[in-house]
């Protein structure tokens, strides 16, 4: 075989393997289950450890694990406090309520072995950011989590076509306070991609391609920003079910509200054993609504939240957040 062709094939193979490998990179160190955050440590994920005293890296295999602790901004990087529970030969877990983290500004963390060694996350992990000390970037990385988080099954997929030659592409936006490290996009066949789980609402975002900020070229929804440029905008919806438990004898019940411009026909509610219901997707925000029961308008009898409209009529109010 011609040497150049061989080189090209090898390069091509290398490219494929690195791409697929990168696609496999995942969120490490935690998962969200209901209202709990579960910190999870699997020793097979870590190859190196360091310690605080400018110590050199050490191989993970050389250490006998006696204890694993979660240390982060939420507990002032304590090497002892948040001890994890061993759940199998290789893995450790610690469960915390998500709401306990709402009073923090950011959530960087790391695992500590034997109250002494920092387990260094692999550079392929999605949720890592450069560790800093006194404002200076260190040569190690921390794990991190935010209320917006990377999740393959999440509700918001961001795609950037092209830019195959870029070294890295970051997704940054109001969902993570414009952090420039957290959300590394993953290379795909035709560009870059990342899926997040976001709460319903409206978010502004941009891509950072090798340090250069850009709007999402495939998204026409934009907002002017303070730098005389534009941010791309994404709206996240949520499925909401409206119930009416009374009026079971009615012939038809219509759901009408600010979400469908007070249409009097479109959302016909479905009769169930427990009453009437209708499910629709709504973006984050406040909505006024009413039921039309056999042509008679009524507020939701089970919802105490009501407001006047511009003409002094009374509507039921629902909030999606």
């Amino acid at each position, binding site marked *: 075989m011609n040497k150049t062709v061989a080189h090209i094939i090898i390069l091509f193979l290398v490219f494929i393997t690195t791409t697929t490998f990168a696609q496999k990179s995942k969120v490490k160190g935690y998962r969200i289950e209901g209202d709990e955050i579960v910190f999870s440590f699997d020793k097979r994920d870590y190859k190196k450890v360091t310690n605080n005293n400018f110590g050199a890296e050490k191989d993970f295999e050389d250490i006998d694990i006696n204890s694993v602790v979660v240390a982060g*901004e939420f507990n002032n990087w304590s090497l002892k406090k948040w001890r994890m529970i061993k759940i199998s030969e290789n893995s450790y877990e610690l469960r915390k309520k998500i709401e306990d983290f709402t*009073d923090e500004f950011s959530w960087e963390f790391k695992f500590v072995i034997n109250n002494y060694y920092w387990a260094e996350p692999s550079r392929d992990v999605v949720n890592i950011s450069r560790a800093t000390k006194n404002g200076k970037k260190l040569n190690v990385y921390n794990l991190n989590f935010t209320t917006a988080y990377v999740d393959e099954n999440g509700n918001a997929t961001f795609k950037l076509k092209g830019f195959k030659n870029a070294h890295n592409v970051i997704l940054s936006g109001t969902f993570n306070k414009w952090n420039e490290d957290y959300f590394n996009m993953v290379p795909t066949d035709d560009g870059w991609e990342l899926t997040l789980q976001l709460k319903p609402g409206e978010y502004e975002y941009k891509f950072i391609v090798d340090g250069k900020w850009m709007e999402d070229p495939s998204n026409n929804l934009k907002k002017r920003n303070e730098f005389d440029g534009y941010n791309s905008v994404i709206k996240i919806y949520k499925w909401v*079910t*409206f119930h009416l438990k009374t009026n079971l004898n009615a012939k038809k019940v219509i759901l009408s509200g600010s979400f469908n411009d007070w249409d009097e026909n479109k959302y016909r509610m479905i009769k169930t054993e427990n009453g009437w219901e209708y499910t629709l997707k709504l973006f984050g925000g406040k909505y006024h609504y009413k039921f039309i029961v056999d042509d008679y308008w009524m507020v939701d009898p089970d919802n105490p939240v009501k407001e006047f409209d511009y003409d002094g009529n*009374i509507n039921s109010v629902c909030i999606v957040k």
Partner: protein
Amino acid sequence: MNNCLSQIYFENMPKTKIILILFLSFINATSFASDIDKLVFPKAEILNKYTARIPFKLIDHLIVVEANVLNKKGNFIIDTGSQNLILNKVHFPSQYGHNKKRVETTGVLNSLDNPLQKKLSEFNLLHFSLKDKNSDIIDLSHIEKSKKMHLLGIIGYSILKDYEIFIDLYLNQITLTKVDKNGNKLDPKVYLEKIVDSIDFKLKKHTIVVNGSINSQNLKLGLDTAAEFNQINKSVNKKVLKHFVPKKRINLAGASNKQIEVLAGNLHRLKLSKTVYLGPMKTILTNLSKMQEAFGVQLDGILGYEFFKYKRTIINYQKEKLYFINYPLITQ
């Protein structure tokens, strides 16, 4: 701004031209002032000439509304702990001088494409005229940096005091309704939800001070919509601190942009009246004696975001009363 321009031309111009320029600049200044003297909330629902509902977003624990002022669009923090309207020096260099100019506002807005803003011109009584308000121009860039937001300023007591204010962390909106000098609402139809309780407060300078007690020790507490954390003074009676359960040390960036380490935990069993009491609230232990100047009164603690999270609260400055509306138990 127009005045500055005319002064530059002033020296080298024939007299007629000077008069013309002065005349033009006067016209410009007048029409300009009619616009700039207003604080307009583009996303507000203006119900009638007395009542508006303004949606807010939470940036961390700060209540932030969108507003247009002085031809700029951006965010304002709603802050009952602040005495005046504060404009961010970064965006409003002092030559704007809107508070020096005494020009009658006409209430006529330029024709606008936004239907909500058009609506506003019909109800111009509700516009927030800035011409009689004190405003301070202060550098707020440290808040912009730490919160990564475009901050035009802070809306404080001097603007809010003419209204009854419903701060609703359930619907994420603030309802402002005009009151007379006795605090009676001019709009009879404002709230539909039941007011379940109320307490009195004392207005000390611009600060809302409520009396509370923990472990039968009386406390004077300030109510501050822009306090991201409840605070309790280190020097309160030890009996009170028995009900403060510390959980962790955290770092905070203070108003001066200095990092301080504080003890955070839960404050239990706060009573504000025989019927109004609060469950454990996340609170930080701080030294409040230095804050006396800012609040104009010596306080034992500050109730902020965490309080509003538990209580949907209506503030009436004239009646010196707080009213509470329950969170609904059901959601659709």
